């Protein structure tokens, strides 16, 4: 199986909420009329993905996946900052 352990109700609720958040931010990414909307949607997506990485570390019963989440959230910050600086320069 892809997921080893049997999931209980709380895990199913976590999966449902994460999926709903991912789908809603994907919707904002598609609909977003302006570029800042899309960048904010990508930022929201990265935060949700970090949460799902931590949840997967719980499901797989292994703490090494927390390292990936740590590194990921730090670097996503830098990427979003770079994109935001680009827009800020464009508006000058």
């Amino acid at each position, binding site marked *: 199986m892809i997921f080893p352990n049997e999931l209980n109700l709380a895990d199913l609720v976590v999966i449902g909420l994460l999926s709903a958040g991912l789908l809603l931010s994907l919707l904002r990414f598609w609909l977003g009329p302006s570029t800042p909307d899309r960048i904010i949607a990508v930022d929201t997506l990265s935060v949700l993905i970090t949460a799902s990485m931590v949840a997967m570390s719980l499901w797989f019963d292994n703490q090494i996946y927390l*390292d990936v989440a740590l*590194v990921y959230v730090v*670097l996503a910050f830098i990427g979003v900052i*770079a994109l935001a600086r680009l827009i800020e320069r464009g508006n000058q």
Partner: protein
Amino acid sequence: MYQFASFVFLLGFLFLISVITGFLPLGEPPMLVGQVIQNNAASETGASNFVTSVVLGYRGIDTLGELSILFAAATAGSLVLSGLKQKSIESGDAGFLVKSASELFFPLLIVVGLYIVLHGHLTPGGGFQGGVILAAAFFLPLLAKPSKSINSLALGLIEGLSGAAFIIIGLIALFNEGAFLKPFFENGELGSLISSGTLPLLYIAVGLKVGAELASLLNLLNQEEVNDS
């Protein structure tokens, strides 16, 4: 006509890959080499991360080739852009939030990068990932204040010394143990920080080299040419 031909090619490509993957079962790889590595890697190299022992132990000379490709890409990039007269971007600094966040994040990023490099044989990560984080750490102040620039001489010095250290460790292994890049210190206890021979030393060299290289590449791309034409 060109677009029609491209669509036909794409359809054929889709069909080809679908047929190829249709015969591949998911989850049952043959594992001819992988099984041997899984049985022997923990006792041979002493690293608990088997990807690290494949990257630096069993395929160490491939990693040397990868480093040379990265070096060639950085050199060719600076060669291509060297004909243009360069100057630093004279746009304004970032706002208060980005400036304070970059000053706050700088030590944090250094610590995370060094942790990832040093624990490359125990946890996921290693020289490449940690090197990228170090390069991003040194580039973050430039993102806040674009008028500054990194000392490229020091970056070149770090890159050259760490690249030489990688090859020197490999040559010492060649003369002492009889194989290039063979790990030659004691394996130590599985799972402790000082273990698995020379693999952490090699990963530190890789991390410093990749970090310096990528920082100089970002520094190069951050400048802009003088409009004199």
